[in-house]
């Protein structure tokens, strides 16, 4: 509940943030804090330096390009997405963000924080993989783009390494998406979640909560048997914890995959 001693800076620019992150080995970026502050309260991790990104305006905002591509700043909150007219270019984004926790968390929690913390039970990693998002990372050597599927590397680990910042992500337009989950209570932590998208032609499925990173499947069709076979063929080895056994997660993955695909098919 009480943090260890920490140093704090609130830079006004991305360059200054990168400098601070680069010059202190134990530095972490502070976005909405809805995960990091809790981690620090539990003393599960105690960065030496917090670099607060709150004042960096260029990291916020949602732009809709003429080709329908959404560009979302990493510091955009879930509420920003839910309320955004532009974000309706990809309706599933707002719908899923609206299922995250509660108003207070949605007002502070950010898209960037959700993906960079990459807790296996988070909503956005599987969703962004399914919709084919692209992440933009800014580091000491400049900017690079990483497709969502390559962005998530391990539990709490992403392609944005120490001294780097996720600055924005872009999402192509589309409507043929689905998201199915079994949370613990309404809008609670997910036991299993599955995102599906049909906009690329063939279905893309991303299963969350079953591995360190979203498990991506591309079944040949939306037919039930095909989807089921794809999930089974993935030989999922989910974790067991107090909320669910490995068996139950494996079973839910299959059921929810079918539901996510059905949802997506219904909306395409």
């Amino acid at each position, binding site marked *: 509940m*009480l943090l260890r001693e920490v140093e704090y800076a609130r830079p006004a620019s991305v360059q200054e943030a990168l400098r601070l992150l680069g010059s202190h080995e134990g530095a972490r970026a502070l976005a909405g804090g809805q995960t990091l502050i809790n981690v620090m309260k539990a003393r599960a991790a105690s960065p030496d330096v917090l670099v607060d990104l709150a004042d960096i305006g260029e990291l916020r905002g949602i732009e809709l390009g003429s080709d329908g591509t959404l560009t979302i700043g990493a510091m955009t909150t879930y509420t920003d997405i839910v309320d955004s007219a532009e974000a309706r270019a990809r309706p599933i984004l707002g719908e899923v963000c609206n299922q995250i926790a509660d108003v207070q968390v949605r007002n502070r929690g950010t898209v960037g924080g959700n993906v960079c913390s990459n807790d296996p039970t988070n909503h956005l990693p599987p969703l962004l993989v399914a919709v084919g998002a692209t992440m933009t990372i800014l580091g000491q050597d400049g900017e690079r783009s990483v497709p969502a599927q390559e962005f998530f590397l391990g539990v709490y680990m992403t392609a944005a390494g120490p001294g780097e910042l996720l600055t924005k992500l872009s999402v192509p337009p589309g409507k043929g998406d689905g998201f199915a989950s079994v949370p613990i209570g309404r809008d609670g932590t997910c036991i299993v979640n599955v995102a599906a998208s049909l906009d690329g032609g063939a279905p893309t499925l991303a299963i969350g909560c079953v591995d360190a990173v979203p498990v991506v499947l591309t079944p040949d069709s939306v037919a039930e048997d095909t989807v089921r076979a794809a999930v089974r063929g993935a030989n999922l080895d989910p974790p067991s914890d107090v909320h669910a056994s490995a068996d139950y997660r494996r079973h839910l993955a299959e059921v929810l995959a079918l539901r996510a695909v059905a949802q997506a098919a219904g909306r395409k």
Partner: protein
Amino acid sequence: MTETTVTPERPLVVEEGESKVGFIGQNVPRKEDKRLVQGEGVFFDDVKRHEMGFVHFVRSPYAHARIKSVDVSKALELDGVYGTLTGDEVAILTDPFFELSTPPGAHIKDYALAVGRVRHVGDPVAAVVARTRELARDATELVEVEYEPLPHVLDGEESLKDEVVLHDDAGSNTVWSGVFDWGDFDAALEDADHVVRIERLHFDRFSSTPLECSGCLVEFNRGTGQWTIHGTHQMPGVGAIWMAPALRVGIDKLRFVSQDIGGGFGNKITLHPQYTACCLLARKLNRPVQWTEWRTDQHTANTHGNERTFLDVTVPVKADGTMLGFSVRAIDDCGAFPRYEPLGCIIWAQVTPGCYRWRNVRVDFTQVCTNKSPVAPNRGYSRMQHLWLTERIVDIVAGELGLDPIEVRKKNYVKHEEFPYETPNGCIYDSGDYARCLDIALDLIGYDSLEEKRRDAESRGKLFGIGIGSTLDSGTNNFGQSMILNPELQFSGNNEVATAKLDIFGEVVVTLGTVPQGQGHETTTAQVVADILGCTPDEINVRAGHDTYWNSNAGFSGTYASQFAVTGLGAVKGAADKLAGEMKQLAAAVFGCGPDDIELVESQARIKGNPEAALPFMALGAILNANNAGLPPELDVTLNVRYVYRPQFEKPDLERKYGNLTLTYATQIHACAVEIDPDTGVYEIVDYAAVDDCGNRIHPQIVEGQVHGATAQAIGAATHEIFTYDEEGNLLTPNFYDYHVPHALDMPPMKTGYIESTSPFTPLGAKGMGEGGGAGIHAVCAALQNALGRKGEGPIVWRSCNPYEGVWDLLRKPEDTRKLVSVETR
């Protein structure tokens, strides 16, 4: 999410009776609200003292270990640390806390900090006090404790074997054991047409997790040796009985003060270990010390509700569905230290046959320690576990014999005309009408359209079930029940205190002995007093909270066990009656008439039939307090009265374990409809009805609020709330992230109804009702059973908590639980 229907404007059903005049029975505005909605309540953590130190405990990471050494030297070097306390010091400065049990449980040594051994993860080993909260937390990381881990035991049945023993002084993990045998169970077995056997049922470990964690701010007065504890203790009378001998001081050296408490639900009754540690620190460091429990501490190391396993349940049944009784072997897991236990080993006997007319009951009850958090009287304490058993029995028997669970209940319920009803072990159920409450619940939930709802659910691919949960909330304990467990104990009866005075300016001031945590005591007290004194509740000033110094408390004072409407308001009524009598005597002396000629009305004492001859309260107060020359010498009034309410109880017959153990029995009959997604086990409570009968309702809104809250807690316990441990004895649900309680969107639409069966035994005809008896748990289990099973087939709901995966397991492996039940037909 359908609209919630709250109790309709007009009561659904009200007992015929005199129309009520006065404030009792009305929804007067709550006195507590004004300060609470402005954030001006005073909870213990709001109290600040200059130069106070903040306490943080060093806690065991092991379920069971020997403490080899505790080194606080590095912590003491940290700038800002004021001092520490270790188990070695505690063992020198204090005596072990008083144990309630007979040997071997009597020999357990329980101290403020772990002495020599830790017995559950989170067991406090040392305490550090520092200038800030953060520094205290930092300093605990510098305390070095060397442990030698020991084997641990986490299961009640396993613990019985005494292969791993927690308390060497006791030599056994069995805290208490005994057999209760009433009626003639063997004859009932002979007489039965069917015998239904249930191998095992399990009531899971959970607690009501009040939103405010525990804590205290303790000051020590060196000159007088007096401690003042601003805290959250729900039962300070008993707290003092534990703490004073341990600290080797007289009871009056412990002053308990509280104003507002953020929920207790029984989880703030056994705080004496932590409070004793804080008392020692306040004295040692000569400064006030403040301890705030964290949520994680509350879940791991404060208290849980009793976990109980029921084995070999045997139910003799007649062909027409009449149940003759039951026998069971119960194993109660009380965690690492008994503390308030083994009282749970008898308290269930207040409701031995549940709502039913069963005359032959045999219970073989054993309570054991395990390396888990200690238990405390969590809401529904011990009766809830037992009543869940009786409801599971009724549903399983009905299911196995192909009988309608509604009809079986009505057939076996105690009948309205049988009240007051004496149970097989001599408890007197005061009043009630269970069948009527059940009919109301069925009506509220639309039972007649059950089949239509089922078809509709099935058309959407869901399984549908309706379940009933009937339960009793027994209140106002006869503490003589403790003597049944341990004849050496000198506790019996019950009491509560109130004072009432008329101040010099005519202000009526009342103090209570209770320790409210949101039950609206100030308000209902004012209603009762206002009706007696003939004024308005606004004119009654009820002091907020509790303070030993008010001298309005007695041995059993506190707020627990569903009794305020009886004991608290009984004391209030007694004090107000006494004060009213004195006011009339004084007015009579002033007017030169008799006291019977005086009435109290419109905030005045006046001669009946002569409204001109009136003395406002202010005049009465002023005359006696400041202007009393000339009053007749024989006038013996003080306008400052203290009244102790004592319910009528006898000491129980210890040989037969027989006697009246509680004064009142409120009824809760709930009905619940669930829809289960058979592909996932995920289920939703789609409709819910709660019918309550707590006798005369002093403040209907307050009663209904308790019904809503109890239902929400029960639904939580039925669906997600469970304290699960891993193999190492770590609690896997130590916070609100993992321990999911109902939030606003998790609540089903709820309809409520009520009847009022006046209690013949209480001063106001009211019954205590706050705990609620866990009806929601019984109802949800019953609904799930109804959805999942058909006669003689399908799974058996055998646990109180049924999370989604549990339901999925029941669905896909019905044979695993089906084999728990067998029917022998003669």
